Each structure stands twice: as structure tokens, then as C-alpha cells.
């Protein structure tokens, strides 16, 4: 089980780095993206193991991951999106939306509804996780010394 945890986290790191390449992230940030994605997936697995549901685990994982993305982004003076968009990839319901569309086309109403609702729940969970992480005051990350534009933008989330 411990072994499986390690392999899964490693796979999440590889997956995140792969998608950061596909998303055109600059080379020097590949490692940071990978680690953030791996940490997110690890939190998700541990939370599942602790008995939380898939939705709650996704919420926790995306919260930790988004907070980490902000901290790293502040340190490297880079837009948070770079890390967030890639790191979040293992958590977003990509499989869910694919299966939803697949069952819809195959006229399987039961699985279609079930997958559709699950996909929506997961997307909302990820969004709320990001929302909570973005409402942490920017000051905590030590972002005091720069022009107000990056500061106000970061914590208003809009």
C-alpha cells in the first residue's frame, strides 16, 4: 500500500510535468509544476485513505495545491496560473467529463446522469478549494513590496 502510494504520486508528478509541457510552461518551472501536482495527488490519496469521500478529498487537495501554487508563484515572481493550471490537472474531472459525454452518446441514461453529477460535484469541489486558497491574505506570502496591481489581483480572485 505504501509502495502504491509512492508510485501513484510519482505518476502524478510525471503527468503534471507532461501537461506543463503541453501548456507551454517555461522550462525552468517544470520541476515546480511537477512537485505541486504530486503534492496535490498525495493529499487526495491520504484524504481518501482517512475515509473522506472523493468530493471532499478533491476539495482538500485543490486547497493545498492552490495555496502551494501561490506560495511558489510569489517566490518566483510568476503568475500563479502557471502552477495552478498544471498542478490541478490530476484533480479536475477530465475522466468524468469524457465518460459523461460517452454515456450520453451511447444512450445509457443511468450512468450518464451518475457521471454527469459526479463531474459537476468534482468541478465545484476544485473551484471551492481554489477559492479558499485565494482568500488567504496575500500578505502572508510576503507580497508586500511590489506594486499594488499584483497584490489586489491575487486576493480578489476576480
Amino acid at each position, binding site marked *: 500500500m505504501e509502495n502504491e502510494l509512492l*508510485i*501513484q504520486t510519482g*505518476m*502524478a508528478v*510525471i*503527468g503534471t*510535468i*507532461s*501537461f*506543463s*509541457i*503541453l*501548456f*507551454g*510552461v*517555461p*522550462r525552468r518551472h517544470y520541476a515546480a509544476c511537477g512537485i505541486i501536482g504530486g503534492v496535490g*495527488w498525495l493529499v487526495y490519496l491520504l484524504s481518501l485513505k482517512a475515509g473522506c469521500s472523493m468530493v471532499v478529498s478533491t476539495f482538500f487537495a485543490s486547497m493545498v495545491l492552490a495555496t502551494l501554487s501561490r506560495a511558489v508563484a510569489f517566490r518566483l*515572481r*510568476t*503568475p500563479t*496560473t*502557471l502552477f495552478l*493550471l*498544471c498542478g*490541478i*490537472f*490530476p484533480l*479536475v*474531472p*477530465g*475522466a468524468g*467529463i*469524457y*465518460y*459523461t*459525454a*460517452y454515456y*450520453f*452518446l*451511447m444512450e445509457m441514461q443511468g450512468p450518464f446522469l451518475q457521471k454527469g453529477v459526479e*463531474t*459537476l460535484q468534482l*468541478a*465545484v469541489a*476544485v*473551484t*471551492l478549494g*481554489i*477559492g479558499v486558497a485565494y482568500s488567504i491574505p496575500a500578505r502572508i506570502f510576503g507580497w508586500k513590496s511590489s*506594486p499594488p*496591481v*499584483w497584490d*489586489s*489581483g491575487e486576493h*480578489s*480572485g*476576480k
Partner: protein
Amino acid sequence: MDAPDWNREKELFDLVIQMGELILVNGGEIYRAHETMEYAARNFGLTGFQDFIIANGIFASVIAEGHVYSTQIRWIPLVPTELCRVEAVNELSREVAEGRCTPEELREKLQSVKTMRASGEGLRILASGFGAASFCYLFQGSWADTAVAFGAGIALYWFLLKVLHRIRLPKIMETILSSAVSSLFCVAALRLGFGDDLNHMILGAVFPLVPGVPLTNAVRNLLENDYLSGLVRLADALLTAGCIAIGAGMALTLGRLLGGGF
């Protein structure tokens, strides 16, 4: 006192719009485009700057020649994300704020940002393979499935970049065809005795296309009360997912017709 140079005002406004456009096109958030444009406008001394941004459009106006409104409208296509450009514009915006970059320099630098790429086609094709393989494994695929997904992911991006991008097709046809090609790869692999579970292999194989991030962005926009952007992105995500499923379904049907048993 000389009369102010109205042409210069127009040029500066154009630079401001370009910055917002580059951020939004390449996957930056709406608020980042808004803040960058507003800040650049203030730095350039443009007065009365107002903007309205949705997922696929920018509308902005400034007061020109001291008394009339000048307006620019840009349509923003929903195209693949290229995050290095967002970072570059962010850096340029900082340089402008600190007075390290004149408008002339900015114009030149923005031109080079427009064609900037962080990685070549070869690396992207390889990344697609690794991405497909790792997500096949994360969704409970066996090691054999993972290996097939790796090949299918490479086939997917090779086909997308080397074949489809050479012949101009509508986006939905591109998605359907590339999904079909990588799913067919999995069907063929199973027929030749590689891999255990076709569903896991196909899920991994099409994962580089799957619109999980656009879907999440759509929900984020909706929860931020930006209903217009949310609906635009939601429709795009659902349509993309539908196209992927059509492609995969085509491959499965073809596999069944050619001597079934799946």
C-alpha cells in the same frame, strides 16, 4: 506648450489592448488581463480607461484627444494554452511599471512574445505520451495498459501536430479525428495481444485532449458571477468532450465490425 500628440495616444492604447489580448488568448485569467491593462493604461498616462472582458472578447475605451472616447474591440479565440507568453507579458507589465521599458521597446517585445514557444513539437509529442500513460495508471490501468496508453498518446499528438495542423480543419473535426486515431491505436494493440482493459487504455489515450481544466475554469467563472464567460467556456468544454467521445465511439465500433468480441 505643444499640442499633445493624438497619434501617440492611439499607439499607446493599442499596446495596452495587445497586452490584455496576449494574456487572455494564452490562458491567463480574466482578472489578470483586466489588471494588467488598467495598470499599463495608468502608466502610459491614458485617461478614462474602462474595460469589459469576457472569456472570448475584450472591449475597452479611453478618452482620446482630451474629450472623445476611443474604443477598441477584440475577439479572443479559444485556442490552446501557451503559458510562457502569459509569464512574459506579466514580466513586461512589471518593467513598464518600474519605468524600465519605453513604449517603443514594449512594442518590439510584444511582437516577439506573440510567437514565443516554450517547447518544440518533438518534446510535446513525447509529453503527450507520458501524460497519457501516467493518467492511465492513475485511473487504475495495469502496467500493460499504461504502456499501450504511452504509445497511443504519442500517436495522438503526432497525428495532431504533424498531420492535422498541416491541413486546416474545424476544431471539432480535429478533436474527433485525433481522438479516433488514438483510440484505434488502443483497439489495434488489444487485437495484437497488448494491454488488459480497453476502457482504461482509451481513457488514458485521449486524456491529453480532455477538457478538465476548461470545465473547472467555467465553474470558477460561474461562481465568480461572470455568467457569460462561464457559459462560453462550459459550452466549449462540453462540445470538446462530446467530440472526444464520438471519436472513441467510432474506433470502438470499427473494432467491433472488424471481427468483434469486445
